[in-house]
């Protein structure tokens, strides 16, 4: 088990963003195969592949695809979540940029399977360059008749539009994304079991399918090749591959597609190993998941079950590597700042809790920590986790609680000695700026 390029196989082919080159490499084969199948057979194929959502939660994809009403009585919508915002993750960016046709094809297949006539790709506003590639891909697909009226003679119509976001991490959350698509503030909406699932009443109260970019690409691969082949990779319950975005103190950062179940250390090795020091910690799945010490890393395999068993998550695959000069307390302070900034403010536990966690983290990391601050942090976290309206509140707590668990001694060192245990200056203190000139000279 190691590097296995299924989805990223053609990423380095010159001109692969052009539809001719893409078709020469087996592009739109998945769509042609799907068009010749019964709708239910497409869903069954995805079911047989064992594919699970790659947006973070790992929810079985076929259940969503199967959940939409199987008729044309009312409009259905297919949404692609390309609002990648999780710190440490950049796989969707690379796929949008280099393999836009794979995504477009995957979405059309989903449209066929779910009786939908309209699809939207929600791309974050900063991703103009990747979005241009998607624009070109969609225009070319229209010219070839893969989009528009009566696709490949199936009698099925499908239109695909791009909707650009405008800078908000929270809009990656599925119900917030739908609010944003409807032209509202990016606040999440009430969720199951208090409200119907999106597959029953989603965007504009119509049945809606929402998946991540990588999920659509994988579904396309399944249709283009076969479900058995996809299911033959990976572990018992986590099938296929996962794209990991490796960054941090690593020799060769970048996206690596690994077979599910690959040992974490193997990926580290493939990416060239740690630089400027020895391995201290790894965050395997983006900033929202728990940090793991070097010893724990030896035990972890990259699949949903193994990560879960070791008290972390595979998440979105934002794999961040830290060497022994990294100050975990300052790292967590910056993480807390991120969630404070991105909290949408709709519910009180998260809006207030993320602020308090940042304040306490800031106090510790600037040398003003007090005895009992660690307990205070844990207490705030316990009041936010599981009590907030959407997943962002939970995600704000997990990294901090995880870091206290794994590196409690460093927090204690900061509180006691008012300085960093590793003497690192990666996050210089923020000077309160009154007069810019004075503030600068004070530094």
């Amino acid at each position, binding site marked *: 088990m190691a590097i296995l390029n299924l989805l990223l196989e053609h990423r380095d082919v010159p001109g692969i963003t052009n539809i001719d080159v893409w078709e020469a490499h087996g592009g739109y084969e998945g769509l042609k195969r799907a068009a010749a199948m019964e709708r239910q057979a497409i869903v069954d194929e995805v079911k047989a592949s064992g594919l699970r959502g790659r947006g973070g939660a790992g929810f079985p994809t076929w259940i969503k695809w199967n959940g939409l009403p199987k008729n044309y009585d009312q409009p259905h919508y297919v949404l692609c979540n390309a609002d990648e915002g999780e710190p440490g993750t*950049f796989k969707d960016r690379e796929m949008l940029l280099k393999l836009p046709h794979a995504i477009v094809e995957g979405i059309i297949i989903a449209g066929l399977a779910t009786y939908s006539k309209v699809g939207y790709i929600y791309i974050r506003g900063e991703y103009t360059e990747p*979005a*241009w590639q998607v*624009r070109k891909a969609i*225009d070319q697909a229209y010219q070839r008749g893969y989009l528009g009226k009566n696709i490949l003679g199936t009698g099925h119509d499908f239109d695909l539009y791009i909707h*650009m976001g*405008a800078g908000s991490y929270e809009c990656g959350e599925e119900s917030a994304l739908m609010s944003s698509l409807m032209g509202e503030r990016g606040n999440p909406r009430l969720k199951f079991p208090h409200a119907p699932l999106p597959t029953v009443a989603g965007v504009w109260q119509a049945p809606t399918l929402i998946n991540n970019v990588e999920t659509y690409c994988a579904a396309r691969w399944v249709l283009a090749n076969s479900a058995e082949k996809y299911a033959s990779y990976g572990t018992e319950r986590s099938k296929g591959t996962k794209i990991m975005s*490796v960054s941090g103190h690593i020799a060769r950062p970048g996206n690596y597609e690994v077979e599910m179940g690959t040992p974490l250390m193997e990926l580290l090795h493939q990416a060239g190993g740690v630089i400027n020091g020895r391995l201290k910690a790894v965050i395997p799945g983006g900033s929202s998941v728990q940090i793991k010490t070097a010893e724990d890393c030896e035990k972890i395999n990259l699949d949903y079950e193994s990560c879960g068993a070791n008290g972390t998550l595979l998440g979105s695959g934002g794999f961040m590597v830290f060497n022994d000069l990294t100050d975990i307390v300052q790292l967590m302070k910056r993480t807390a700042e991120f969630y404070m900034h*991105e909290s949408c403010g709709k519910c009180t536990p998260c809006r207030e809790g993320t602020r308090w966690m940042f304040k306490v983290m800031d106090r510790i990391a600037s040398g003003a920590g007090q005895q009992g601050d660690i307990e205070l942090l844990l207490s705030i976290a316990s009041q936010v986790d599981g009590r907030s309206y959407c997943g962002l509140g939970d995600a704000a707590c997990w990294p901090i609680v995880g870091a206290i668990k794994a590196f409690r001694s460093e927090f204690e060192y900061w509180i006691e000695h008012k300085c960093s245990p590793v003497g690192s200056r990666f996050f*210089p203190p923020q000077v309160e700026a009154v007069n810019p000139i004075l503030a600068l000279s004070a530094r």
Partner: protein
Amino acid sequence: MTSTSYNALTDTFIPKPIAEPQQADRFSDAAIAELEEIVTHYPERKAACLPALWIAQREYGGSLTPGAIREVADRLGLSYTEVEGVASFYTMYNLKPRGRHHVEVCTCLTCALLGAYDIVHRYEHELGVTMGGTTEDGEFTLSEAECLNYCGGATVIQVGDKYFTGVTPENCLSLIEELRKSQQFTPALLADSIVKIQTPGASTSGGGSFAAQDLI
């Protein structure tokens, strides 16, 4: 912007009518055509609020003035406050005027590890502004961005519709030098690019290539 008065009888806050910014509409005919095209993508007009704000941000020279928000509201049949509420939620809509180059330095986890704050301090020193500030000559606005999701190329800086990757404290000043030479107005350029991306057929009718150049 908005002010309210309290009605104790009904226990509600009543918004006072906002002094409507009296200003002539500034959407060009081409912009109106773009907006009407985009409106057809959705089952209701309101959904075009985000794209309409992007068009407004371009047409009004890179920021959303009260007049711009009112024009969007009028064109979509929404209330002023509704549109203002949307515009203030998203960080990429500029409610304040920006400099000719809006330099956003990613200071999130990976970038911070690899020296983003040192870059920020160098820029603050070079430009004489603090985070979020605009230089007196209106050339640069410097701000901090959350993860730009290109962490493999840390440190990442966004200027308009371009990403600059692999910036280090040593080479970061050359980016400022390059930008000083450039005549573009990056906030409006970014809005223009985003509007075009949402217009079907834009890739065949020009639109141009928007490769993020690694200047450095």
